[in-house]
Structures are given as structure tokens and as C-alpha cells.
């Protein structure tokens, strides 16, 4: 038996359920055995650390297994968060603050090369209520001298082109210079970080054609209303939806997206972003990382089971002096330490891997966000990882644990 267990035994007055508690009880042997400093939590922590030190190699291995699994999941989540940001940014480019978006029957798609949303058909015929403002936009991929860029014909003041910084870099231009698009000489200004070039509709149409959509805004007095989609649907005869996962019916009249409402606490933009991140998590990347996390959990449970098996006699002694429940706390603290260290190591390793292997898909913000997401479900894994082996142990009588050889 190790020193930590001996001190726990001495701290156990007969018949007391919580010998690790702070209050003295009758029969306590504190006169002869110095009481360890610190509260119950501190003693549990020291006990767990003592056991970890005793089995250093297994701690390192189980931490490495879980840490690698955490790393895999954080890498995938970071990429997923990055895609969600792309979705969110592309939607903001489209809407320009307008609450309603009317798309063609063929729908829209995201072009990953140009980093923007592209309409797959011409905008539907649209009639809006009196006082409302509808703006037609055209969108497409421009095969520019600097490579493929998204081109959006919209409400840009005549004679101007608004470029994302990536588009400006690709075209090797700067604010104040001019660029010629569709035969129009336009003055450059830079806004945002993407590869989108926003120009007046008249300049975009000769380059990318007439595929596009409408954005619609109600009068200022109606801005706060939550039934804008219904109102526009009634006036135009088009169907409407507030769910970005719903697509327009093929061959139908098109679809109005009402972006003002929330569903299950999520805004339209958040659900639109989730569609993008879902494409990553449901891809080969997501599948492989999920399997990795399951394997990491299996390793944790296997490691704890081995630890339980080796310490049967020790736990038999503890159970026989009324410490049966405390065995669970010991394992919970030990499991918590293993998962915490594994999480920190995994998050740092994921950051390094992202920076070295896929720097274009990650940012500090998305890594932090992904690390936060993974941190949210690790406590549950740590608790279950400790409960499974201890539950099996506690099913047995102390005498059975003491009788068997470890």
C-alpha cells in the first residue's frame, strides 16, 4: 500500500462516511498521525497525483492517446469553424443589411475558388408592396487577370468598385487606382478580406451575365416586423422560408428567404453558417476525427480498467473501512487530471499542426473557438471514463476484492 492510502486509512474514524472531511470525529488518531494539510479537494488531488506518479508511464500513454484524439477533433473543428465564417461572410456580402433575399428557382451555390455565393439562374419576376425597395443583383465568377474572383453587380455607386483585400491583392491594385470591368473604368476601394469584387450591375452584366437575385427592404417603419417574408410572399406570389436549408423547388417560381427570424435560438445567418460547417463535419474529415475521438475514449477507459485491476486489494481495504464511495471520487479526480492534461496538450498540438500543415484553413480565432467547442464535451467523457471501471469495482464485496491476488 502506498503512503497516500495509509494517510487516508488513518484519517478514517470508525463508522464515519467521509473520513476525508475537515471535521474531527471520535476515535480520530490525529494525536499520533499528523493530519495532511488542505481541504478534502486538496487531499483528493494529492491522492490522485500520487497514483499518477506511481504509474507515470500509463498516465503519459493514456494522456497521449486522448491528446492525439483531441488534436484530431480540434483540427477538424477549426477547419469547420473557418468554413462557417466563410458562409457567414458570403451571406453578409449578399444581403448588405437587407432582411429579405429572393433567389431563383435554380437556387444558389457557394463557389469555394471565388469564395462567394453564385446564383444558378436569373432572378424571378418580383412585385413588392408599395413603399418597399427591391434591388436586383447579379453574381458570378470573374476569370480576372489575377485568377478567379467573385463578381457581384449590386448597389455600388457608379464609377466605383469595392474589392475585398484578397481580390485587391490578386488584381495587384490599391484604393484610389482604377480597374476596368465590363468596359467600365471603376475607381477601387477596399473593404473586407475576401475575394469578392462588387461593382454596379451595368459593369458586372457584360462579364458574368444576368444570373442573380433580389434583396428587398421594407419601409423604415416596418423594419422591426417579424412577418416580412409573409408580407412579401403575399404581394409577389412567391413562396417564402426562414430556414436556409430549404431550397427553392426546381422549375418553380423561386424562393424568398426571410433572414429576420430566429429558430431554436439561432439566427438565419447562424443556421446558414452551420450548413457550411456541417459540410466539413459530415465529410471524410469529420468521420475520421470522430472515430479518433472514440478510440481515445476507449484508451482512457482501458487505462482506468487496468488501473482498477491492479489496485483491487487497495480498494478492498478502503471499502472495508467505509471508503467505498470515496473510491469513485479518487477516480473522478484522476480522470479529470488525465483529460485536462490531454486536452491542453491536444489543443496546443492542434494549433501547431494547423499552422504547419493547413495554414490557409485556420486562424487564431477559429482555433480558439474550436478548442472551446471540444472543451465543452470533455468533462462528460472524463466522468464516464471514470465511472465505467469504478462501477464494476463497486459491484463486488470488499472481502472479494481482498481475497483475490492483484
Amino acid at each position, binding site marked *: 500500500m502506498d503512503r497516500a492510502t495509509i494517510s487516508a486509512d488513518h484519517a478514517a474514524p470508525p463508522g464515519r462516511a467521509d473520513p476525508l472531511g475537515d471535521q474531527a470525529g471520535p476515535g480520530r488518531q490525529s494525536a499520533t498521525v499528523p493530519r495532511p494539510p488542505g481541504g478534502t479537494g486538496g487531499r483528493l488531488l494529492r491522492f490522485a497525483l500520487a497514483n499518477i506518479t506511481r504509474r507515470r508511464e500509463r498516465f503519459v500513454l493514456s494522456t497521449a492517446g486522448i491528446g492525439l484524439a483531441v488534436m484530431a477533433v480540434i483540427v477538424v473543428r477549426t477547419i469547420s469553424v473557418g468554413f462557417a465564417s466563410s458562409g457567414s461572410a458570403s451571406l453578409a456580402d449578399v444581403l448588405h443589411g437587407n432582411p429579405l433575399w429572393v433567389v431563383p428557382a435554380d437556387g444558389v451555390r457557394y463557389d469555394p475558388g471565388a469564395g462567394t455565393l453564385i446564383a444558378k439562374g436569373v432572378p424571378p419576376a418580383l412585385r413588392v408592396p408599395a413603399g418597399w425597395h427591391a434591388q436586383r443583383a447579379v453574381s458570378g465568377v470573374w476569370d480576372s487577370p489575377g485568377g478567379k474572383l467573385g463578381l457581384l453587380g449590386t448597389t455600388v455607386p457608379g464609377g466605383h468598385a469595392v474589392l475585398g483585400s484578397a481580390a485587391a491583392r490578386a488584381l495587384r491594385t490599391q484604393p484610389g487606382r482604377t480597374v476596368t470591368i465590363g468596359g467600365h473604368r471603376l475607381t477601387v476601394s477596399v473593404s473586407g478580406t475576401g475575394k469578392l469584387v462588387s461593382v454596379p450591375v451595368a459593369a458586372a452584366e457584360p462579364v458574368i451575365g444576368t444570373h442573380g437575385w433580389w434583396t428587398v427592404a421594407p419601409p423604415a417603419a416596418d423594419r422591426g416586423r417579424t412577418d416580412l417574408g409573409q408580407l412579401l410572399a403575399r404581394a409577389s406570389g412567391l413562396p417564402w422560408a426562414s430556414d436556409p436549408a430549404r431550397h427553392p423547388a426546381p422549375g418553380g417560381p423561386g424562393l424568398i428567404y426571410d433572414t429576420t427570424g430566429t429558430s431554436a435560438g439561432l439566427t438565419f445567418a447562424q443556421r446558414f453558417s452551420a450548413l457550411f460547417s456541417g459540410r466539413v463535419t459530415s465529410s471524410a474529415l469529420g468521420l475520421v476525427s470522430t472515430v479518433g475521438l472514440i*478510440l481515445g475514449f476507449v484508451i482512457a477507459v482501458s487505462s482506468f480498467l487496468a488501473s482498477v485491476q491492479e489496485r483491487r486489494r487497495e480498494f478492498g481495504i478502503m471499502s472495508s473501512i467505509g471508503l467505498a464511495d470515496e473510491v469513485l471520487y479518487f477516480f473522478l479526480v484522476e480522470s479529470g487530471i488525465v483529460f485536462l492534461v490531454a486536452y491542453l496538450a491536444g489543443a496546443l498540438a492542434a494549433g501547431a499542426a494547423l499552422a504547419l500543415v493547413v495554414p490557409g484553413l485556420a486562424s487564431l480565432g477559429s482555433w480558439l473557438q474550436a478548442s472551446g467547442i471540444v472543451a465543452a464535451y470533455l468533462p462528460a467523457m472524463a466522468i464516464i471514463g471514470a465511472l465505467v471501471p469504478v462501477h464494476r469495482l463497486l459491484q463486488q464485496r470488499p472481502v472479494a476484492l481482498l481475497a483475490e491476488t492483484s
Partner: protein
Amino acid sequence: MITRGLSYGLLSARRRARDLILPVITTATGAFLLVQVLSLAGSVRRQAASLGNGAEVYRAVLLISVVVLLVGVVEVAVCATRTISQRTREIGVLGAAGVRRAPVVAALLVEPVLAALAGAVTGSVIAVVGGVAASAAGLSSSAPDAAGAAAGVILAIAVSLIASLLTSALPTWRAASVPPIRSLSSGG
């Protein structure tokens, strides 16, 4: 002496085959995924391209696959520490009988190496056979690429063997270095 240590390790591994099932399964799972990703590289690349930044996404898929294989192999090393803990007295007996450290280490390393090899081969075979069968049955849109599958099998076996040796070497070395009297008095 090393040869005798290996023979002794083989006999022990046969006796303890049941304990090796879990590490074989975890390694096989990692190997299966890695071989699948490499043999269906065309399909995975297309999927990566549809997400955008195709080359980087594909690199990420490869990275994650190798990491998952390593996670599977870690279970082999956890199993090795369990074995060492259960055989401490046996190691003490070997030391007391005059057996040197190197053959003892060789004997103890047989199990992790066998488990890693069996896992990598099993996972690879299932991935290749499954891929061919799925393609023949029309369940898969693209046929597995032979060169990619071969690269996947070689990579899976090499990574599994190297990782199992690296992770198991230290615990076995330390166990074989304990004085026999201590192993005999403390071990199970």
C-alpha cells in the same frame, strides 16, 4: 540470447492472446481509415475540392488519418504496461535466474509488436477487400486506387510498428531494469 527471448515472448503472447484483442482492434481501426483515405484518394480529393482549398483539406484528411492510427497504437502501449504490471514477478524470476536485460526486453516487446502488426494488417486487409467489394457491388462511386492502397498499407504497417516500439520500449526497459528482489517481492 535475444532469439531465445523472442521465442519466450512468442510463447507468452500465445498464452495471452485474449489480452491483445483490444489493441489489435484499435490499431486495425486506425489502419483501416488510413488505407481507405489513400486508396480512395481521388474521391476524397474531389470531396475536399468541393469544400474549397482542396489541397489543404486533403492534407488535413491525411494528417488526421495518421493521428487516428497513432491513437489506435497507443492502446498497444497501454496494453504493454498492463502486461508488464501483471508479469512483474515473472520478470523477477527471469532476472534471478540470470537472464540478462536485453532478452527480457525482447520478450516483452514481442506482444506490442505482434499486436501492432496484426492490427495494421487486419485493418489494411479489411480496407482493401472492403473497398474492392464495395466498388464491385456498385456501393462506391469510385474504384480503389491500387497504388494508393499499397502506399496506405505500407504506411499503416510502418507507422504502427515504429509507434508501438517507441511507446513500449521505455516501460519494458524500466521493468527489465528493476532488481529481481524488488520484482519478486512487489509484483503480481
